[in-house]
């Protein structure tokens, strides 16, 4: 029963973020895409609400959480329309569903679990819920030093939310949350492009890259979800308000999910600068992630919890060759680099110009990954790269998947807002 309730907590997230259905770009999506966008927004809103409750010493009890959320949903629900719940069925979509079923099977038979869930994401969620807040005492305890005390709080907050409903922490629903993230990423790519084949390419690659290196239960799927939302909005949304708000949610979510979210935000902002986005819109998009990062860093500073954000060390080219070789080997995903080769083939068969933004972000994030590995004081090819590259490299891979979708997406006439304000595509 606790597993069912724990999982139901994640299914409630779209209701919390349903306010985004008011945006034109979201209203145009198929139902799965709309639910996925609302779910991502809901997870961020919930995480922020819980963090705010923690700051004002309002404990995360079930009653308090439901009360706060009921007020929040009541305020945001006005003006939301529920019409046109359409899905375009095709054999490709059925194949997507079959692959999703395999991911669910892999998760539920404990074949894809990541150790990080047991080592720190799960324990943090459990202890935060028990304390009814972001538990500084738990994070400060030297016995818990290896649980990465300064990692951003969104995933533990979501786990705590799930536990608030189920009373005892449901490890199984935490694992299934990854399958939900995979489905949401594919739904976004599929519905923003209105192309089931793009969805199939994304689902097949994500299914393999999530299960092969054991990702279920970690923070990477949630990070990828926000990265997908931000870049899909920037590439496919036709009106400037939708583009800006969804990008703010996506980048904000990324930055409070993982430390790597900060470098992703920097990569996106740099790519947008290179694409000559209007400064006012760029500043607006940057404001949300920077505000959230600022808030989290201030919290870490005041609680003296800085650790990972200090960075690994000084840049050194000593291990350049071995780092590059090890990262290249990890990128094969034991499938002879098929995920990369297939995606690049699809991109170059389409209109590459329309894929400029995700391609630029993919290139920057690849370079950033190597840059951080080169800051390792010891040879990163020994432990750091083998233990992390397959997860970190998913960001550029997902950017390529979006690029592949963009290169073949229907060319939609831009609305007046987008023509006036958005970037040049």
């Amino acid at each position, binding site marked *: 029963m606790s597993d069912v309730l724990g999982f139901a907590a994640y299914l409630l997230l779209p209701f919390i973020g349903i306010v985004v259905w008011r945006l034109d770009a979201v209203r145009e999506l198929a139902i799965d895409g709309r639910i996925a966008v609302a779910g991502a927004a809901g997870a961020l809103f919930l995480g922020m609400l819980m963090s705010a409750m923690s700051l004002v010493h309002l404990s995360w009890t079930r009653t308090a959480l439901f009360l706060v959320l009921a007020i929040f949903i009541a305020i945001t629900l006005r003006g939301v329309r529920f019409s046109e719940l359409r899905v375009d069925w095709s054999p490709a979509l059925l194949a997507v569903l079959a692959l999703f079923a395999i991911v669910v099977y892999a998760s539920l038979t404990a074949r*894809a*679990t990541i150790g990080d869930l047991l080592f720190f994401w799960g324990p943090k969620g459990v202890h935060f819920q028990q304390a009814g807040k972001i538990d500084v005492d738990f994070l400060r305890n030297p016995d818990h030093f290896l649980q990465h005390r300064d990692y951003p709080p969104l995933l533990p907050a979501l786990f705590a939310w799930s536990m608030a409903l189920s009373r005892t922490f449901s490890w199984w629903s935490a694992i299934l949350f990854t399958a939900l993230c995979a489905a949401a990423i594919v739904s976004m790519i599929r519905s923003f492009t209105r192309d089931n084949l793009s969805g199939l390419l994304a689902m097949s690659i994500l299914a393999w890259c999530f299960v092969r290196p054991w990702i279920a239960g970690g923070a990477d799927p949630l990070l990828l979800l926000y990265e997908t939302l931000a870049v899909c909005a920037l590439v496919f949304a036709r009106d400037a308000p939708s583009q800006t708000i969804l990008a703010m949610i996506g980048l904000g979510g990324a930055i409070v999910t993982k430390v790597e979210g900060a470098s992703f935000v920097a990569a996106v902002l740099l790519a947008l600068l290179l694409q000559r986005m209007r400064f006012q819109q760029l500043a607006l998009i940057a404001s949300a992630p920077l505000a959230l990062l600022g808030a989290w860093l201030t919290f870490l500073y005041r609680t003296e919890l800085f650790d990972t954000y200090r960075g690994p060390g000084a840049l050194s080219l000593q291990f350049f060759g071995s780092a590059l070789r090890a990262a290249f080997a990890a990128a094969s995903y034991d499938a002879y680099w098929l995920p990369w080769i297939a995606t690049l083939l699809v991109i170059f068969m389409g209109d590459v110009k329309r894929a400029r933004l995700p391609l630029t972000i993919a290139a920057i994030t690849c370079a950033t990954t190597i840059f951080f590995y080169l800051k390792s004081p010891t040879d990163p090819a020994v432990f750091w790269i083998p233990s992390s590259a397959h997860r970190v490299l998913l960001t550029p891979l997902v950017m390529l998947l979006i690029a592949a979708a963009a290169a073949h997406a229907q060319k939609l006439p831009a609305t007046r807002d987008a023509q006036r304000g958005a970037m040049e595509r």
Partner: protein
Amino acid sequence: MRQKFRTLVICLTAATLTLLLVRLLHARGGPFFEIPETILDHVEKERPLSRDVIVLCRKAELWMPRGSSVTVIAPAQAPHYDFTHHLTACGLLPHHEVRHPSLAEGEEWPRYVLAVGEPLAHRGYQLVAEFPEGRVYARR
């Protein structure tokens, strides 16, 4: 023509990765249609030690009063204990004070030690309970 080639590439990729996935899931060992006991049961074909830590923590919880201090070690790994076992216990024993296996200077020994796999040979601790996955020891 390009569209057809694109469809072909995507379908071939999906088919190849699906076959690889099925082979991979099979390689991670059976049984294939039973609900596993823990979330780590089939991550590898061989049973990982962390899986035993999960089961041992669940069983040992009943033998240790709430709030008592405890650590988890695999005696076979001495002296280089795997610190991840105590991290695992942190989430599974939220009502206990789970400690790192290495003691800080002047730090008191934990009241309980969960020994995964092989028995613990330490004159400061006595056996309290024994399970297939390991043993529970209490400070004398």
